[in-house]
């Protein structure tokens, strides 16, 4: 099903801009994300990568432009509504329920997804489903042995895996991952890449990552940001050869 020019987009942003005062953290960004592809988002620190994710997931207010998910405009929707619509995400700074156990973390995410519009009271029968959902994801992210450990005392790498698990429980179609590999050791990073590949099968993924080897290897398409704008985008080979990218970014890093 890996469509070429015919594949329609699942997520689309149209001339979006996020400004903090006079400073434009993201500007002029128009992009269409096709279903089932993994997009690697790169660019120097402060380029606006996280802000772009915030704009897509509803955490940053747009000063201009529109965002569409499956052709429905979500520009004005709050983050939870976008989650319901199929947009999951992890954060650059890990966001978990630190003083709850891993299983409780996952169960809450399952609850948020299943109960949606009836969050107060629900048939007891449903509670079993929630636990089942949580257990399924628990083994998917390989944390079975830490189910009853407080999430805050997990290793950094395991916390990142838990974050991905939390996002998966909302059954997203689009997954935004903000530097899920940052700060983890080489071996762990390898396992994490494997995990990301496995759990994002069939999903559209936008992944921010600084390690060029990793990005080039796992991305179907690469987006390069600089000073709030998209400088270039395309397949790994094209990006590697792009002179603008080389001077602006690649040359600087290595």
């Amino acid at each position, binding site marked *: 099903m890996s469509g070429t020019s015919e594949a329609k987009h699942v997520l689309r942003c149209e001339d979006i801009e996020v400004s903090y005062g006079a400073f434009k953290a993201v500007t002029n960004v128009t992009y269409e994300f096709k279903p089932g592809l993994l997009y690697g988002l790169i660019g120097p620190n402060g380029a606006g990568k996280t802000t772009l994710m915030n704009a897509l*997931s509803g*955490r940053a207010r747009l000063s201009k432009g529109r965002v569409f998910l499956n052709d429905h405009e979500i520009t004005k929707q*709050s*983050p*939870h*509504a976008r*989650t*319901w619509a199929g947009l*999951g*995400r992890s*954060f650059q700074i890990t*966001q*978990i*329920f*630190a*003083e*709850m156990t891993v299983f409780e973390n996952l*169960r*809450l*995410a399952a*609850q*948020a*997804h299943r*109960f*949606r519009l009836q*969050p*107060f*009271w*629900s048939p007891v029968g449903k509670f079993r489903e929630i636990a089942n959902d949580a257990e399924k994801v628990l083994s998917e992210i390989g944390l079975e042995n830490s189910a009853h450990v407080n999430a805050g005392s997990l290793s950094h790498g395991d916390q990142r895996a838990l974050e991905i698990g*939390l*996002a998966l*429980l*909302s059954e997203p179609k689009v997954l935004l991952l903000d530097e899920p590999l940052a700060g983890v050791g080489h071996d762990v990073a390898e396992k994490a890449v494997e995990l990301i590949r496995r759990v994002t099968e069939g999903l559209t993924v936008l992944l921010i990552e600084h390690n060029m080897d990793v990005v080039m290897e796992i991305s179907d398409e690469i987006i390069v940001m600089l000073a709030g704008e998209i400088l270039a985008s395309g397949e790994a080979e094209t990006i590697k050869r792009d002179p603008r990218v080389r001077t602006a970014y690649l040359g600087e890093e290595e």
Partner: protein
Amino acid sequence: MNAQRLLAFLVAIIISAPLLLPDGQGVGLVNAILIWSIFAIGFDLVFGVAGMLSFGHAAFFGVGAYTLSLLTMRMGWDFIPSLGAAGVVGGAVALVFSYFAIRVSGLFFALLTLALSQLIYIMAGTKLRMLTGGVDGIAGVPRPDLFGIDFYDDGNYYFFLLAVFILALLISGLIRISPLGQALRAIKSNEVRAEQIGFNVQRLQRSVFTISGIYAGVAGGLLASLIFYVGPQMLHWSTSGDVVIMVLLGGMGTLFGPILGVAIFEIMREWLSTQTSHWYGILGLIFIVCTIGMPKGIAGLIMQLWDRITPGGKS
């Protein structure tokens, strides 16, 4: 016996004191404890469970007191429907507050709720004087007239209050373990993540704030009938301060802690006020010392001690 049961046991002893002591001694004090406990249990749903520090709960408490008083005295309503109305009005005012205050968090939330409740306090003393009796308040608030029992007898009224208290405690216990209670825990723990997994944070916060307002309204109505009087003092910010202190002292976020906090606060208020006219200042001082010495309140301290004297008790 685990620590949780020990706390329940302590609470049971306190609230059944009039039955245990000769001649129903202490019934006046226990009646007040029951009513303030209803207030504190409801307050802790917002404070301890959802993690929002409100300084405006005096408004819901006072409005509930006025509602019950006016409906029974001016409109000729029966006591029970008036008490229900006190809860409804308390909850409605809380809902209105929440629309203003929930946009902001932390200190700003506390300040905004404080400002809104002081607005109501000032209005009750001035603009609404015709309705509220101004600074004089309204005297002669009745008690229930049910089953031919004389509830003007404190010993009898105790049973009525006990029933409402148990109901309030049960509902609070259920809310804590319900999906709503779990979602609120999540919001308290990490609002960003709670929102991102799909919880409608503001709606959930508004819901619990409203429920808490119902608790406060009912408690306010009951206090007015206990002391046969309602005045603007019940709307004053210091009433909000009292309930914050009670819950902190007892142990926020625990089911039984707030009740222990109320009991100690009320016992000290009763005892200290006979000793010195500076009792409120002394109470404040004791409170500061206590919160520094035991950040998880009395409930936390008891649980800690219990775990220590029962080796292997945690299994």
